[in-house]
């Protein structure tokens, strides 16, 4: 039986019955390319989040002012200051990568754009996909500047052994870590690799992997793999299926054409 919800556009859950994506404040229809209800704000306003210098902001049904290549929506409200955040991968190496991100106002998810587009995402699975992309190549200057400023204050770990970092103390309520490569994160983050593939990391989870970034695993607080991972491709000697020999993703319970090797952007 198909699950009621699977993760689709920018990591949001899709309602299997309606086909709409749940963005916390509203539902989004990827088929129609718009929200199903107008944007709203806690404080009553005639046109919430509108700005006089951007006519697109007057359309309360549009997704990120009809500019999904450079902007993302965290919670169903278009509020730039709240919506964006986080880091992206840099240089494409795990050891030197800046990754992760923090969470939008909705307490949910947010995608940090990497370099490149996501034409297909993780088919049938975790993120991306849904007729589109997580985020695209044409990263707007706004986001880039945010990313750069964030990167200066949240440096990635120095290259080192590709083993799990020491787990954080579960009773430590001061955990504010947003970089899953340095240990369990305080809240959910989504990491986007240089190809644009999005990797969801829940609060308390962390990432491990190879130094070249081709192999990335989501691990629990103790470093135990959860089964969600990106594989760089297996040798033909052990994996005769061609789909397994190229980079792919795994998400427990998810298959593509009946196979566990989920296509990724390469």
């Amino acid at each position, binding site marked *: 039986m198909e699950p009621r919800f699977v993760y689709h556009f920018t990591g949001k859950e899709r309602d299997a019955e309606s086909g709409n994506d749940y963005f916390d404040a509203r539902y989004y229809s990827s088929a129609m390319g718009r929200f199903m209800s107008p944007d709203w704000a806690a404080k009553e306003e005639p046109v919430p989040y509108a700005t006089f210098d951007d006519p697109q902001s007057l359309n309360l049904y549009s997704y990120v002012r009809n500019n999904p290549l450079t902007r993302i929506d965290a919670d169903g409200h278009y509020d730039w200051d709240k919506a964006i955040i986080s880091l992206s991968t840099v240089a494409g190496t795990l050891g030197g990568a800046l990754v992760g991100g923090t969470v939008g106002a909705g307490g949910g998810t947010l995608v940090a754009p990497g370099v490149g587009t996501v034409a297909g995402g993780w088919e049938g699975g975790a993120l991306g996909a849904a007729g589109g992309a997580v985020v695209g190549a044409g990263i707007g200057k706004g986001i880039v500047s945010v990313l750069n400023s964030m990167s200066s204050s949240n440096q990635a770990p120095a290259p080192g052994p590709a083993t799990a970092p020491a787990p954080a103390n579960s009773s430590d309520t001061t955990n504010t870590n947003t970089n899953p490569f340095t240990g369990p994160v305080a809240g959910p983050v989504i990491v986007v690799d240089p190809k644009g593939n999005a990797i969801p990391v829940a609060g308390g989870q962390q990432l*491990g992997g*190879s130094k070249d970034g081709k192999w990335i695993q989501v691990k629990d607080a103790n470093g*135990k*793999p959860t089964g969600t991972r990106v594989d760089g491709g*297996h040798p033909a*000697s052990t*994996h005769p299926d061609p789909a397994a020999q190229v980079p792919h993703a795994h998400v427990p319970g998810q298959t593509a054409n009946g196979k566990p090797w989920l296509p990724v952007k390469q």
Partner: protein
Amino acid sequence: MKYDYGQAVLCKLATEDGIVMTRPGSVVSITSVNTAEQAEAFGYPLGTVVYTVEFGDGSDKSVSEGDLDDFPG
């Protein structure tokens, strides 16, 4: 670490009747057991390097380095 990501290995698996067989697979995850919590979670003593090996059907298993052999050829 003796093995690296993506490397072909032979994974030793014990059947219920104690027979040890090997199954070819590829390394997809490497973790060092550095804390008591990890030791409990993995079921291996401190200092163990645990490899997750994916088999040709997509299933996987986490084993210690001692449960892996070099893939022939």
